[in-house]
């Protein structure tokens, strides 16, 4: 039983590591852009991936509170997108 538990835990961690690698690869898009929307998009991808990783870690590390963290992240995920699209530039263009 404990042996199988260990196998499942390793599997979860391996998937989590793979997703993390995925996330880091996605950083390339933040670099290349070209537009700000592309960079923002990449950041949103990171959010979804992080949620998946947290769910996996919650199971692998037996820390159920991490599922709350994932819940919080998805709940607040839209805020960044809203912030990105709703914050205008300075009305007068530049400072002075």
């Amino acid at each position, binding site marked *: 039983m404990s042996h199988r538990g260990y196998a499942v835990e390793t599997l979860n961690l391996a*998937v989590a590591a793979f997703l993390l690698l*995925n996330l880091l690869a996605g950083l*390339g898009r933040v670099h290349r852009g070209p537009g700000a929307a*592309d960079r923002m998009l990449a950041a*949103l991808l990171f959010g979804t991936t992080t949620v998946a990783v947290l*769910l996996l870690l919650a199971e692998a590390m037996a820390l159920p509170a991490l599922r709350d963290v994932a819940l919080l992240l998805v*709940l607040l995920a*839209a805020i960044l*997108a809203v912030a990105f699209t709703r914050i205008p530039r300075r009305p007068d263009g530049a400072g002075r």
Partner: protein
Amino acid sequence: MTLAELLSTGLLGLGAAFFLTGTVGLLRFPSTFARLHALTKADNLGLGCVALGLALQADSGWVAAKLALVWGLALVAATASAHLLARCILRERGGTRRTPP
């Protein structure tokens, strides 16, 4: 290995594959819109598979429900975010001035 474990393993693998697809799309697709579509769909499918796979491992219905909730909320957030970003890109192209930087 029990059937549930086998299924769970398969789902996790599938989820990982979806995430990989999303990342490849993000990096390789030529236009912002194509990237937007590829990414939101692939990632949320991936998250769904991972959540389902984990739900099979879970020992209580409470945990499974929470996983479902997370996925549902992620879908809503992704829909809204994609919509907002797409609008923003459209405005950026057609509008007089680029609103975002």
